Every structure is written in C-alpha cells, then in structure tokens.
C-alpha cells in the first residue's frame, strides 16, 4: 500500500544524546577488522590532528539508524518494516565522529515514492555535537518490497 505523501518534509524531534566511547569505537573497528591506529590509539589520532580517537566513517550509522527508527516505527506512516531492505546509504562529514562526542540526530523524511508496488523512503539524519555544531549528515534510502499477491 502506498505511503502517505503528506509525510514528506516531516521532521522528528532530536534524539537524546548518544555518547561516543573509545571502547565502543574499538569494538566496531575490530568487528570490521580495521587496525588503523586512529581508531584505538589516542596518540596516533592526535598525531593526525584529532583531539581523541576517531570512529570509522560508517560507525555513525548505528546512531542515525536508531534515530530513523522513530520514522520507521511511526504507526501513522504505516511502513511494513518486515519487508524493508536498505537501498542506498550516503554520508557527508563536517568532521569525523570522535570519542567524547555527545551526538543528537534529527531525522527528516525527504521523499516518499512508489515504484512497481515498492515503497521507497528517503530519510535524512542531521547529526550535531553538544555545542550544536554539525558533524555529519546521513541519507538512508529504505525500500519496502511489494507484498506478494495473495
């Protein structure tokens, strides 16, 4: 069933802050097998000009996708999450996410399309730090595949 076009442009309230921890970054870097010392060694990160260890570029998705959950789970939108797949993902960084950041995410529905029975939802997540400075924007395209004919 086609999603309600009137949701396009809707912005959800900012999330509570997510505090980025050194050990969480280490855990993520180990999970993707990335031994870059900028992720685990504060001195190595400082040598590159960062105040603390930084996170791998895709780390922030865990935070923005959790925030997008309030869109996905909005009963008024009526998305069938059991049929959702991740279509596209894009990030634009003002600076890398780093340990000590307290990040909030503001999610906006950018577009809703219907294509061959599939519902396509574009969500933009704006990530800001505690000082209100922009850190990264994440664009997530979700595709809810058409239900099979009964």
């Amino acid at each position: 069933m086609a999603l309600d076009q009137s949701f396009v442009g809707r912005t959800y309230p900012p999330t509570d802050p997510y505090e980025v921890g050194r050990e969480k970054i280490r855990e993520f870097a180990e999970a993707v097998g990335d031994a870059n010392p900028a992720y685990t060694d504060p001195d190595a990160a400082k040598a590159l000009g960062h105040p603390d260890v930084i996170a791998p570029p895709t780390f922030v998705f865990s935070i923005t996708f959790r925030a997008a959950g309030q869109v996905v789970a909005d009963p008024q939108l009526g998305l069938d999450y059991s049929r959702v797949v991740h279509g596209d993902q894009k990030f634009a960084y003002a600076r890398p996410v780093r340990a000590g950041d307290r990040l909030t995410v503001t999610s906006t529905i950018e577009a809703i399309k219907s294509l061959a029975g599939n519902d396509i939802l574009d969500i933009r997540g704006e990530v800001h730090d505690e000082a209100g400075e922009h850190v990264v924007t994440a664009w997530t395209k979700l595709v809810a595949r058409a239900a099979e004919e009964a």
Partner: protein
Amino acid sequence: MTAKIAYDDVEVGTELPAQTFPVTRATLVQYAGASGDFNPIHWNEKFAKEVGLPDVIAHGMFTMAEAIRVVTDWVGDPGAVAEYGVRFTKPVVVPNDDQGAVIEVSGKVAAKLDDNTVRVDLTATSAGQKVLGMSRAVVRLA
C-alpha cells in the same frame, strides 16, 4: 586532517591498492554485536531462507565499512573522508563453512575537485557479482 597522499601526486585514473576482505558467519555475529543490527537474516539461515534469500547474507553496512578501507588505508587518516555513499545492489551471501565469502574492492580516482579533494570510485564484488553500485567517496588530500 593529515592525508599522506598529496593532491598534486594523483591524477584521474590513479588506482588505489585493491584489497580483499574475508567474511564468515563469525564475522557477521561480531559485526551484529558491534553495530547493534541483530536482523536474523545476518545470522539465522532458516530465517533468511524463509524470507526468500539464498542463505545468510552480510550486513550491507558491513560491506560498506570494508569498501571504504581501500580509501582510508590509502590516505592514512580516515578523517580525510568528506563524503561516502553506496547503493546496495546484490547481497554478499555467506555460507556456513570455514571459508565464508570474500569481498573484493578496488578503487580509482575518478575526478579532481576543489579544495584538494578527489572523488574515488570504488568497485566491490563477491563471488563475481557486483555488490555495491554508485560507490563513491570524496577525500581531502594533502
């Protein structure tokens, strides 16, 4: 930002060192825990098949995380990545054996942009299939 590659030293067509990334079921369980994405299609074969997949598949975001390593290992400083986007075109199917799957990633400089940045186009394949489309990063060089 301290990229170890100089803007003046690259040209359109410059190839980045290609890499291969193995992925087993254990990798996916570890990634699920670290990322918080516990969708059972990434660890439960019965569930994956019930929803029409050939087998357990890797998280798209795992593949995205591996592909950018070709760029971050090249520039040294991962903070040099200014933009990164992909389209998830085909799943990486991960069989339940000690081999798992392999993701092969290559990249080349596709355009030289303003402010010492370049656009790198990435190609990611697994089992001969292209698994990412429109996979592009903008990177700030020295």
